[in-house]
């Protein structure tokens, strides 16, 4: 199963890329994806928070990802 991962702000500095494509086994939850991301990019753990959004909506850790989902790494926002 393929998903797209978008990185913004300092998260992009850490992952090094705006867009990543990842192959996942079926039935991976947002929480499980988070663990894989931190394993692959340990500096993500240094951030105050990283929320994950799926298809333009903040997602709970339990949400199970589907084919072609767009996941975004949302470090602490600072607009306004």
């Amino acid at each position, binding site marked *: 199963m393929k998903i797209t991962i978008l990185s913004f*702000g300092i998260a992009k500095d850490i992952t090094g890329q705006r867009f990543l494509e990842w192959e996942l086994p079926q039935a991976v939850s947002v929480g499980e994806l988070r663990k894989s991301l931190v394993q692959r990019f340990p500096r993500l753990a240094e951030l*105050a928070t990283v929320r994950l959004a799926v298809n333009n909506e903040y997602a709970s850790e339990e949400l199970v990802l589907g084919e072609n989902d767009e996941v975004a790494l949302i470090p602490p926002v600072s*607009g*306004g």
Partner: protein
Amino acid sequence: MLEIKLTETLLDVNACINFVSSDDAGGIDVFIGTVRNATKGKPVLRLEFEAYEPMAIAEMQKIAEQAKAKFGAKKIALHHRSGILQIGEAAVVIAVSAPHRAAAFDACRYCIDTLKETVPIWKKEIFEDGEVWVAAHP
């Protein structure tokens, strides 16, 4: 009626006020967030705002809808800059009209407070000797 905008060009306060004006609204509250020239005493040269555009617009729309429903606001314009901003330029303009002033103040404040918590936009401060993503670290 809501007007949500995320733009790389200068924000227009008058356009926001005109959008929310109406003959049966008694009060308009406008918040303008501007780029400050220093952070903790250190001079800031300019700012860069990065946005996750479709989600930022969706979140701004949600916030405006909530503010309208929660406080009985009449019309809301919520405009945010992206890209490079010079000192003194407006990063955000929020205009709210309501039949009574308390609702206009409360809805406007709700919009900016919530925007700063949930809208996926990131500010990078550019200093003489480097740059920093604001609020990234604990």
